[in-house]
């Protein structure tokens, strides 16, 4: 990775100097402004037309009285809270929980806080997404420390955590509102069909490291949980529309309401994205999709919440991925989910969830139809004074139909299959010392149709030396179970120009990880918090390829199948911090380091160093900085910059990207934004192809777009 390192470092230093200079100037400007006028602070209510309510007048009169009181008594009680002097609108904006108290549910399958989570967790809030100008979920994930988010082309991303990045990154589990979107066919996530109204996202929780004890197989290197807001929180109308050079056009409309115990929302959205550029000119990776959905939350009493939600989508994703011939891949699908949650008291609750998810992908090389049916139950209760127990059961049935093209390029044996997954988990949190020391241990036990039983235990210790500090450590086992593509697929491909056949591979079994983690997080001041995590991952039985024979010719074609001959160690450091310089200027930054050391038998026997390809597919160093700055109470200026190290395994050079957003709210209801993405270069490469197939490499272009948002 030492290529051009001096130049690289110089560029980082220059970029960060520039950045800080700009920010510092900005800061001075901001304080000058706030000094000249304090109206900014109170925000929008000053311009509100005076309501003709008599009570209003009375209230304002009282407020004047109150202000006089304040002046008279100030001498006596200087130390008094200024909260009592605030307007009700200001009060509504006071943030009461420090950064470490952000609510998360991914770590424990129950509500906890970041500060009390014995795992490397990070939360992307809806506000951060809005300020980033992100249009897609992968763009929002770029805010997460250490996550490798590489755009392969306009509609494909390679997203992974702690190494092993590919288009089908198979060690990262992704869920949207409790529905897993990890494809059981190709082991990975089809990011082009994962979408939500980003305005309706409450938060995105990301765990780096294993989460298999609670979430099951494939949560090996990370878990992403995208959680949307309750329908109660999306009452009103919301509309957004815009377009630009790369984001050709997009629009979203959402309406929500609340009648007694029942809250609902419904949305529709559409977008069209321009393709990237490859060596031959424009790439055929343009992307169009329309999507609609709803959510209802019914709360008949203070114990129960019944949620019903669903989405339906259809679109085309341009692709040249499997073949040189460009084509418009047709995608469509729908899902419906029902959850009943009953809270008995603060420590006791249960929930029951059922969902049904159907996805179709029609490309020349393969037609996929996948149906997933999932039932999930979980129950939490205290046992004695020290134990907090959570357990659950899950059944999932995956039915698929995989029809090859003719002539075939990829075949599945059998072409249609129904696979079942039974799983159970139990986890206990033991309070060793109240508010100081907690021990969490548990295991997942599951039975799948590929490898039989899998046990995925973990043990975690959390020590809170003070209210503002947390130290945690964990040891966990997780497995990546085979998908259809691993065991049942036969790929008719080529190797160095010669035909070759890969699979099927009935002997391929689960890949295994034992992870050791250590973390520390602290909030030394109200405005500043930081955390660091160290990890050491030991992998066994990683996927490899082996020449097993030849298919008699002429010509003789070599036959390779998948085995578990590869192993290796991966370690790294992730450092993140948040700094609220002033109430109107927030900085978020992170740096991560990652090192993979794999031992893989050379593949093919005479050629490529397979280990080096995987090792060189994840950036060794990544740096990120985001600045969110309110230039006044109606103007926002945001900056995001990333440095991503080179990917030698993908022949991708290092790059620095810069995104800027300028937002203006002419009124309470209207917001205008302009976003510039990848401003530092006209185009750059983010990902190649891990399997070294001769497909065109698509470069990501600079893009500018503007949009109008209306909320009511």
């Amino acid at each position: 990775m030492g290529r051009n390192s001096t130049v690289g470092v110089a560029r980082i230093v220059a970029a960060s100097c520039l950045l800080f200079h700009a920010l510092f100037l900005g800061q001075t400007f901001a304080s000058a402004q706030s000094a000249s006028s304090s109206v900014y602070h109170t925000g929008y209510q000053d311009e509100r037309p005076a309501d003709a309510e008599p009570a209003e007048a009375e209230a304002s009169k009282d407020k004047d009285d109150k202000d006089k009181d304040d002046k008279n008594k100030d001498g006596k009680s200087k130390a008094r809270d200024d909260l009592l002097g605030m307007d009700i609108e200001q009060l509504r904006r006071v943030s009461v929980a420090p950064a470490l108290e952000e609510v998360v549910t991914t770590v424990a399958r129950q509500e906890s806080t970041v500060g009390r989570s014995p795992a490397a967790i990070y939360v992307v809030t809806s506000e951060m997404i809005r300020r980033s100008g992100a249009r897609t979920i992968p763009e929002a994930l770029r805010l997460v420390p250490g996550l490798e988010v590489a755009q392969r082309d306009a509609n494909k991303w390679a997203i992974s955590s702690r190494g092993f990045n590919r288009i089908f990154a198979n060690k990262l589990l992704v869920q949207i509102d409790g529905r897993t979107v990890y494809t059981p066919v190709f082991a990975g996530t089809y990011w082009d069909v994962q979408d939500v109204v980003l305005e309706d996202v409450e938060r995105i929780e990301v765990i780096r490291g294993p989460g298999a004890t609670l979430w099951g197989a494939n949560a090996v290197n990370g878990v992403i949980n995208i959680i949307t807001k309750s329908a109660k929180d999306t009452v009103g109308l919301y509309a957004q529309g815009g377009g630009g050079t790369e984001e050709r056009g997009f629009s979203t409309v959402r309406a929500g309401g609340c009648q007694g115990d029942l809250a609902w929302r419904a949305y529709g959205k559409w977008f069209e994205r321009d393709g990237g550029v490859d060596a031959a000119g424009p790439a055929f990776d343009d992307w169009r999709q329309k999507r609609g959905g709803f959510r209802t939350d019914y709360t008949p009493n203070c114990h129960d919440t019944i949620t019903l939600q669903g989405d339906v989508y259809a679109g085309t994703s341009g692709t040249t991925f499997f073949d040189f011939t460009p084509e418009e891949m047709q995608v469509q699908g729908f899902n419906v989910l029902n959850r009943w949650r009953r809270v008995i008291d603060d420590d006791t609750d249960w929930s029951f969830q059922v969902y049904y998810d159907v996805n179709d992908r029609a490309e020349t090389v393969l037609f996929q139809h996948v149906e997933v049916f999932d039932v999930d139950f979980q129950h939490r209760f205290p046992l004695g004074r020290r134990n907090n127990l959570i357990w659950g059961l899950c059944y999932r049935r995956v039915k698929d139909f995989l029809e090859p093209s003719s002539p075939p390029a990829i075949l599945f044996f059998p072409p249609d299959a129904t696979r079942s997954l039974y799983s159970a988990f139990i986890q206990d949190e033991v309070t060793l010392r109240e508010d100081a020391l907690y021990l969490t241990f548990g295991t997942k036990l599951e039975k799948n149709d590929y490898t039989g039983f899998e046990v995925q235990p973990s043990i975690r210790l959390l020590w809170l030396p003070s209210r503002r500090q947390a130290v945690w450590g964990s040891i966990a086992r997780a497995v990546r179970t085979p998908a259809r593509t691993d065991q049942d697929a036969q790929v008719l491909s080529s190797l160095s120009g010669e035909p070759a056949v890969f699979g099927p591979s009935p002997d391929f079994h689960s890949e295994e990880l034992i992870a050791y983690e250590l973390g520390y997080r602290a909030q030394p001041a109200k405005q500043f918090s930081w955390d660091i995590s160290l990890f050491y991952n030991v992998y066994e039985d990683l996927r490899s390829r082996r020449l097993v024979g030849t298919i008699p010719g002429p010509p003789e074609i070599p036959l390779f199948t998948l085995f578990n001959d590869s192993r290796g160690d991966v370690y790294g450091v992730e450092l993140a911090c948040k700094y609220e310089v002033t109430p109107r200027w927030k900085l978020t930054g992170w740096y991560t380091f990652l090192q993979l050391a794999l031992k893989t038998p050379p593949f093919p026997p005479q050629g490529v160093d397979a280990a080096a390809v995987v090792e060189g597919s994840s950036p060794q160093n990544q740096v990120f900085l985001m600045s969110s700055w309110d230039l006044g109470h109606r103007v926002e200026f945001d900056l995001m910059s990333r440095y991503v190290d080179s990917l030698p395994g993908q022949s991708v050079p290092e790059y620095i990207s810069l995104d800027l957003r300028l937002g203006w709210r002419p009124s309470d209801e209207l917001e205008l934004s302009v976003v510039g993405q990848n401003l530092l270069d006209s185009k750059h490469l983010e990902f190649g192809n891990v399997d070294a197939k001769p497909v065109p490499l698509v470069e990501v272009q600079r893009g500018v777009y503007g949009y109008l948002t209306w909320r009511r």
Partner: protein
Amino acid sequence: MKCGGTAISKRGRTCRCRPATERLILMRGLVVRAAAAAVVSGLCLPAAAQALRDSIRPTLEYRVKAAYLYNFLLYVTWPEEALDGSNSPLVIGVLGDDPLGTALDEVARHKRAKGRGIVVRRFESWQEDTRCHILFVPRTVSRATLTAVVQRTRGSPVLLVGETPGLATVGAPVNFYLDVDRTIGFEINVDATAERNLRVDARLLKLARIIKGPSQDGGNG
């Protein structure tokens, strides 16, 4: 339990110190005693009081909620019969363990609303005479009690303010919730306020999440 233990040990230490101080005072006569008293009262006592006060200072969440309660006094209009005379104080009641503590005391000490003083009353149980204008019910109160309080205050001009998820839906006029951006929001059940003859200012309604129901005849499940 842990808190109780700490308090006892603190008091124990104070007791051990007192004889030493007294001996000192006796030895040095009147002037010294006066000086010591001055020093003690001038420095130590306020410092100790301040320390004690800081140690039990409510969390930011409850300081914000106390400020909200004060604002509710400003933006809610009670019917005439709920106000005895023109200068009787407005009463904020708290049921059960009071997390608002000194934050609410400060409101009572330093603030006035509608030209009236503010008084804080703390109730051990909902069965006692809980007559007040605002009744704050912390989330530590059991759900059975919550339901009972909602029922009991139904129809009387009491602005019941809770902080338990779902409480507004079952008929509490106001309920706090922790919003996604970690601010404190509040729900207003407009049917409940109407039923209680309370008029809520538009400015307050605009900031609130509006809840309706449950219907008059409907029980609370």
